[in-house]
């Protein structure tokens, strides 16, 4: 059965961490490490890693805590605002889609009647336009085309 731990591992790690290895430790520990596979592995790995850690710490150029906090604040603010704005945008998109669908449906069903009406206008003499029925109808239609977008804007925008 392979042993996977040794009771002296912690002694080796303590000696390394306190920079006592190899000159300021008991001779007995040095002898033990020389003949214990587990402790010699621990020594090789831990010594290499601790040296690397010390060097990496010296090289680490981390941003300041204030900078990280400020960025986190900005980001959470931005995300919260974006999330809160989402329902408004959705409502507008839904309203616009419904309006367009309605307009298309009305246009589809009213097209034969409109087509007949437009054909009648096209075949009408200019003199007939002064008729008491046709002229006000055309003026009302023109006014509707101008007023409708303005009304739509006023309804959808705030005061």
């Amino acid at each position, binding site marked *: 059965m392979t042993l996977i731990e040794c009771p002296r591992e912690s002694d080796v790690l303590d000696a390394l961490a306190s920079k006592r290895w190899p000159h300021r430790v008991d001779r007995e520990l040095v002898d033990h490490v020389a003949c214990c596979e587990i402790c010699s592995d621990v020594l090789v790995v831990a010594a290499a890693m601790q*040296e*690397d850690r010390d*060097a*990496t*710490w010296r090289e680490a150029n*981390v941003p300041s805590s204030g900078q990280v906090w400020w960025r986190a604040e900005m980001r*959470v603010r931005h995300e919260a*605002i974006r999330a809160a704005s989402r329902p408004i945008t959705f409502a*507008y998109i839904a309203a616009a889609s419904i309006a367009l669908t309605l307009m298309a449906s009305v246009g589809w069903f009213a097209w034969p009647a409109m087509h007949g009406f437009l054909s009648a206008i096209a075949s009408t003499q200019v003199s007939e336009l002064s008729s008491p029925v046709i002229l006000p109808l055309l003026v009302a239609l023109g006014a509707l085309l101008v007023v409708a977008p303005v009304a739509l804007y006023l309804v959808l925008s*705030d005061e």
Partner: protein
Amino acid sequence: MFTRDMTFTDVERLDRIAAEAIETFVMDEDAFRAFYDRTARSVWSYLARITGDRALADDLLQESYYRFLRAERRFDSESHRRNYLFRIATNLAHDRRRRGRHAVSVPVPAENEPGALVDRSDLAAETERRTDLSRAMATLKPREREMLWLAYAQGSSHEEIAESLGLRKASIKILLFRARRRLAAALGGNRA
């Protein structure tokens, strides 16, 4: 697309929502800054070592602390908080690896600063040893790298390693043994 000008009420409302979001941070600014100052270098070193990419470590460091701040949980102790932070960092590194944006390459130690040349006569030997470690680490599985770094560079206990990596404490001993053996062999220390 319909657009709408924001009213004063909207601005006030969104400002209030933003302020409330900041209040959900896991700690206040003073506590965070103290915690960051205690942990940032070790988190960065860990990320740089397990990803082998310093620029990526910079990005993941910021992201780790942001996610930590937004964690919806309470911590019993400093150790618990710290382990949770390392867990976030580990998961972020795994995500990046899965997405394949940064395949882990052989991490090469950075050049030392010129000032250090004057102070360190054994600089060349140290650089060589670190390069050997980088190459040896690159032969290990990501989980093994993480485990070894936490155990031997940071001095974490088995329980802390389990918490940081999301593993069962009972499995740490054998996994650590295998990883250590492989690294020691790769470093030319002992048998594989």
